[in-house]
């Protein structure tokens, strides 16, 4: 068996899996937005029938979305299994082979987690498991995107400009911190969504007409009196409002951090560097994400807008992580490869004057 680092089709397949995973995350977002996660009350069966044989005539209402989510999840599970096998057989880097296996066990864990979210819902664990399931989905998406990057030609030694440098290492720290901030934002978002309380604060840019809404018992009672939930959402509480407001504040922090990263990349990386391209794209994506967040409020959580917000949240997180990896490639590669030919940075003299 020939193993190598140059597996073009493996890379393409990993990219396909990444797209499928993003679609799955999006479909999960639809399920949560519509509040139909428990439309199929059993797992791994569907209303007592084999999941794969459940007749389409019964895919009505919320069942359609929840059942589709389960079937697409099964497909992603199988695709991941193939990826793990493919990487194991054809990839020469041992650590990447193990990463493929971790992806396989990760998708199995995520599938079981989704099942447990259903099974233990009636035991009072639905919210916590739902949040964990949502966040783990994002982490799995990152893992698949990472494998796609590691199997790319660009990653595998065809980087022409490699050099170690302190400014770039500093930039990488910014990417890491910003990506962690986005992860925190995703956790806040998942917490909001899985409490099934709808929009805890229905207006923007103000919040219940103020910069910071009142959260005393009388005010919350008044808010609830005016929320006419169409899907039986739970009454909101003060913690719901606080989590919502933190999500807004963190969004601003993310925007500031991403703009800072892009600015630092332009300052420190060489013209044409992928770090500049990706971080500029990152700013664009975050701006669109911000608009989608606002539209989610103004549209009172319209399904398509909210789902786009969830999907783009995953893309934002993924871009941050890829920037961490790409910057790591520049920083760590020279220590391992003595054949560095050209710096991705501006010459030292330029840096001093920058």
């Amino acid at each position, binding site marked *: 068996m020939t193993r190598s680092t140059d597996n073009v089709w493996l890379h393409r397949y990993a990219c396909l899996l990444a797209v499928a995973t993003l679609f799955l995350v999006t479909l999960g977002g639809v399920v949560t937005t519509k*509040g139909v996660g428990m439309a199929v*009350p059993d797992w791994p069966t569907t*209303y*007592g029938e084999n999941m794969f044989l459940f007749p389409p005539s019964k895919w009505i*209402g919320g*069942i359609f979305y929840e059942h589709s989510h389960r079937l697409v999840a099964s497909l992603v599970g199988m695709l991941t299994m193939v990826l793990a096998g493919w990487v194991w057989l054809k990839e020469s880097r041992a650590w990447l082979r193990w990463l493929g296996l971790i992806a396989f066990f990760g998708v199995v864990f995520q599938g079981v987690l989704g099942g447990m979210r259903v099974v233990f819902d009636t*035991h009072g664990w639905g919210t916590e498991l739902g949040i964990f399931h949502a966040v783990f989905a994002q982490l799995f998406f990152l893992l698949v995107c990472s494998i796609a990057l590691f199997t790319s030609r660009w990653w595998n030694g065809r980087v022409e400009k490699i050099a170690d440098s302190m400014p770039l290492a500093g930039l990488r720290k910014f990417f890491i911190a910003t990506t962690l901030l986005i992860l925190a934002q995703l956790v806040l978002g998942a917490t909001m969504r899985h409490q099934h309380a709808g929009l805890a604060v229905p207006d923007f840019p103000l919040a219940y007409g103020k910069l910071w809404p009142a959260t005393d018992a009388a005010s919350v009672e008044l808010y609830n*009196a005016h929320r*006419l939930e169409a899907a039986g959402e739970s009454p909101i509480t003060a913690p719901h409002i606080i989590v919502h407001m933190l999500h807004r504040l963190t969004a601003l922090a993310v925007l500031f951090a991403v703009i800072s990263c892009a600015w630092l990349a332009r300052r420190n990386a060489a013209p044409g560097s992928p770090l500049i391209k990706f971080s500029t794209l990152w700013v664009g994506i975050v701006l669109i994400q911000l608009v989608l967040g606002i539209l989610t409020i103004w549209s009172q959580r319209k399904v398509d807008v909210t789902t786009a917000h969830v999907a783009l949240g995953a893309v934002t997180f993924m871009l941050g992580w890829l920037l961490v990896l790409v910057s790591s490639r520049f920083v760590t590669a020279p220590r391992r490869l003595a054949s560095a030919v050209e710096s991705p940075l501006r010459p030292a003299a330029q840096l001093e004057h920058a």
Partner: protein
Amino acid sequence: MKTTLTVLTIAALAGSAASAAEISGKIKLTGTPPPERPIVLDVACGKVQPNQIATRHYVVSPDKGLANVFVYVKEGAKAAPAPADKGTMLDQIGCQYTPYVIGVQAGQHFDVKNSDPLLHNVHSLPKVAGNKERNIGQPVPMKSDFVFDKQEVLIQFKCEVHPWMFAYVGVVEHPYFAVTDKDGSYKISGLPAGDYTLEFVHLKAGRQTQKITVGADDKKTADLTFEAKAPGQ
């Protein structure tokens, strides 16, 4: 043995004869509630529900009577054994729960029915320990038996297949409860003489209590007004 039974029966009859007090009243809503949200049905439900339906948060009669207020004796009444008869049935018909609010006694069985020729899931969401959360499918017209052992006002029932379908069940440990009708009227019968605290619970308008004293055979009135406050008030 026979004598004991006779004595107990006479005592029970005497007790019930002495427990003829009645509290009735009308609940009103002042102010203007927010408009209800129209519900967009899916294709399957559109076939069994020809009418345009909307949420039922504030159901108010022309003379301001507020429907779906759960009224019960919060303090002063002793817990009573659950009756053998089943409580009010909660029906799913035309992709809507009917009634919107019902009351049952703790330990009293009641049915949740699917009258529609399509699948609904019945998901009860109690919060009090001892009341069991359940989520079952009703793929065809059928009934399912439910019971809650602990007092809880109010428990939500949902159908996640059709997320706009939800209703509420008030569970009380004695039989002294009622739900206001479409005119906002209610009546609680058979109360023993005593001092009571009534609680009036509306899912949106809030909760209010009122103290009342009734003697044997009294017929007392306890009216109440909720206020739909404007935002920021």
